[in-house]
């Protein structure tokens, strides 16, 4: 294995120009999982971002929370302001692995690993996150909801790094995150959903029910129209249109569809996340 260790973002972009095959590495909690069995990975070149200080910090601007390209779950969990203004970040982060992963794992790594089961992505997407991609050729901003193109396919060239993730600061009246795993902790999501409602409208984002984490436009429209939803089953037609779950080693398509309807229904009905006392800005 070959390791590149840039100390600035500029150096990092330059390294990716010179080594187009290099793989960025943040917490490595995804990259290293299959290390013992994937011999080809041992031959790779890695771009270790740990010494790039400017990627690490998150900050508040007047209109956004900006996470760095190697900001960890833990950093957000330990920041009372971030937890207060964006409570779903805290809720999701708490359910990612355990403390060992939370302190190493990053939001950007979660995004680029592109697992359909990623827990960080749904809440970021429900907050209308945009990602800033940089390379030696320049920079561009992509809404997270338009980032994924299919299973592990995304709008990112290999030479691009996530520099930042921007979450607009808004006032939310509904904020929901539900993770259904196969046990109480340390579980990969079998079905999950994040929901927000603000002046920008409804956002419903589901994970583990499609080739990538995805917005659910039919559900958003249904919620926007204030149609009567009196049982979980009333959500099923919209779910049918929005997602395409599969049977796999962890669960079944039927379970995922049904349980998505049920957790969403009860969360909305119980008014979870609604009327939370929050001082914003």
């Amino acid at each position, binding site marked *: 294995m070959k390791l590149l260790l840039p100390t600035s973002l500029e150096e990092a972009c330059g390294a990716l120009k010179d080594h187009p095959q290099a793989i960025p590495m943040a917490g490595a909690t995804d990259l290293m999982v299959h290390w*013992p*069995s994937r*011999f080809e990975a*041992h031959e790779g070149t890695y771009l270790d971002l740990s010494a790039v200080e400017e990627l690490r910090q998150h900050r508040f601007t007047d209109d956004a929370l900006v996470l760095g390209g190697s900001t960890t779950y833990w950093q957000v969990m330990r920041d009372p302001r971030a937890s207060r203004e964006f409570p779903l970040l805290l809720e999701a982060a708490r359910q990612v692995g355990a403390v060992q992963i939370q302190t190493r794992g990053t939001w950007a790594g979660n995004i680029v690993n592109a697992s359909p089961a990623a827990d960080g992505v749904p809440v970021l997407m429900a907050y209308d996150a945009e990602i800033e991609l940089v390379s030696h050729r320049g920079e561009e901003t992509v809404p997270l909801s338009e980032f994924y193109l299919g299973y592990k396919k995304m709008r990112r060239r290999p030479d691009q790094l996530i520099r930042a993730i921007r979450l607009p600061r808004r006032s939310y009246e509904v904020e929901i995150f539900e993770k*259904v795993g*196969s*046990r*109480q*902790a*340390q*579980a*990969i999501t*079998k079905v999950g959903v994040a929901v927000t409602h603000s002046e920008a409208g409804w956002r419903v984002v589901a994970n583990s029910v499609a080739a990538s984490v995805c917005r659910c436009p039919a559900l958003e429209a249904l919620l926007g129209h204030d149609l009567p939803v009196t049982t979980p089953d009333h959500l099923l037609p919209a779910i049918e249109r929005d997602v395409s779950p599969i049977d796999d*080693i*962890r*669960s*079944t398509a*039927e*379970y995922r569809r*049904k*349980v998505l309807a*049920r*957790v969403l229904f*009860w969360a909305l009905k119980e008014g979870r996340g609604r009327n939370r006392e929050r001082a914003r800005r």
Partner: protein
Amino acid sequence: MKRREGLAKLTGRERYVDDLVIEGCWWGATVRSPAARGKIREIRFGEEVDWNEVVVVSHEDVPGKNTIALMEEDQPVLAAGYVRHIHEAVLLLAHPSRDVVRRAAAAVEIEVEEESPVFDFRVPPEADQIQYSDDNLFKRLLMEKGDVASALASAPLVVEGVYETGAQEHVYLENQGMVAWEEDGVVSVQGSMQCPYYVLKAMREALARDDHQMRVIQTPTGGGFGGKEEFPSGIALHAALLTLKAGRPVKLIYDRGEDMAATTKRHPSRVRHRTAVAEDGRLLAQEIDILLDAGAYMTLSPVVLSRAVIHAAGPYSCDNVRVEGKAILTNAVPFGAFRGFGAPQSLFACERHMDVIAQRLGMDPLRLRRRNLLRDGQSTATGQVIEDGTDRLEVLDRALELSSFHQKRRAHITFNGSETFRRRGIGLATFHHGAGFTGSGEVYLDSVVHVAGLPDGRIEVRAASTEMGQGTITVFTQFAADRMGVDPEDVLIAPPDTSKVPDSGPTVASRTTMVVGHLVEKACDDLREKLGLSPQATGAALREALGHWHAGHPDQELLGEGRYEAPPGIVWDDEKYRGDAYGAYGWATYVAEVEVDLRTYTARVVDFVAVQEIGKVINEVLARGQIQGGVVQGIGWALMEECKWRDGAMVNNQLTNYIIPTSDDVPPIRVGFLETPYPHGAQGAKGIGELPMDGPAPAIANAVAVALNKDPRVIPLTPERIMSLVETS
């Protein structure tokens, strides 16, 4: 007394086999079959590896019989041109680099001319699938008491039920691993294991060597649960073959993926009950058919089946019982020993069925059990008259009291009526577990323990019984210290090494504290006698006597010996399965309270009470730990642990996707002990290692049945299964 090796484990100083640093040691790897059944047509060695550097061992390198000696000589050490399951070991490789040897293993391609495999043990095999005898049955057992046919024919009510349980992975913390080396003509194998003398026996056959040319040493073992009962014999042989060919020490350590995929698991089961009951709930006849999936080789399946059969009728009095058990071949990775050893499977069926019967009768399941629980003087299904002085009704009552069973049951009615998506239920199981080897097994084992009196006045217990986290070292110390009247610090426990300790039998079957512990006591008595000490003489007198003896016998060893003798009056007929199946039984009632979340169809155990009569508690902390650990393993088996199969091989062979409970998934487990000393167990103890594996699953399934008013028959009760239960009316 605190666990003697506890601090070393807690601080990470304990050295497991993978921690041993051995000069010049090479790494081994195993090349496995990609196919479930067929002839090996060709083996290709990939060009990306420099094969001159790699030692390759095949079945042709086995000096003795190519078999892992156990019950039947059917399982080859290395496949000889034919495979019967995926992951069957075909070749072994060794190289100085662990990385290179893994790459080399991945670079071997084995081509198999596939033949028709069997994967579903419940479906009778076709003619071209027959691979053992003429029906693929490794074993059939029949146990009969009274006249079941006429009792069934004349009964007012016959209740039927079919119950299924899944495979279970042991998930010992430490994976399987061995290191082997040869020195002065002696082949030594050292590693993680429960039964050093089983390994020695296997080496005797396959390596064709005399006992004095072989040595087996146990390293501190990070959990076994039965998974290190018979399986280590194979991996030990592999390490030995590699060292013989490589001419240097070789380590063979499985990683988690290989361990989960290629090693044994608990036998999946299907059990059918037909029970004749009187209107007042009396059991008139029990007809039970047990079918176990044995996998591709026999391993220990016949004895697992035997325990399943003997426990199948539960701790109840019934005059007419007929149990037929079958263990059938499939082309799955072989199933093997696992804590409980067949009893959890048949007791799941029995105890779930008791609730089904109660439901049919419209009777409280507590009353049904109370009516039928064995009273002293009554006999079990094998005709064994139980007269151990235990009040089994008291065990039940204690559990009901400790769990506030009645109050909770009432509270749940209100709860379930007012909650929208949460449902609660409480359920129980009353059960038993026979301790020690079945029938005449202990007599055949002929176990021996030595206690050596050392010149410095200390004593050393020498036994092949292993510590694997359950407390052997600690309780043996307690027994020896108490019996000799010395400080625990003056008791040494010899590490299990076949060149140094006698064969005290395998560390299995809940026998170590009860049976072998008693031999420790006998060996102490013998030592005392050889020293001419009175029964009152302790500490200082012993030291003095030892000093004297050694002064008079320079360079000699003074050994007290304890040899197994069957308790008087034990009679067992191995042909007819009649008589005293076990010297002693532990008796228990477990109560589970569950909550089902109807949003996610997830059942969670919210409270658990485990009450048992175990003769005598030897070490409170260890005993409690055994019970709580067993209950957690039972919760996993009941609700979440599920092996997913493809072509007879486990495909979710990672801890990411094979779901065991975390501490968040486990409720407080409240443990109660009752003591009626067993006169032939050490200090009155009976075995408890396996008992706690038997009760949780049926108690939990019964609680789920109550919570949902449904009738679950299959475990694990995963959310997906609970969904179909709820959705189908």
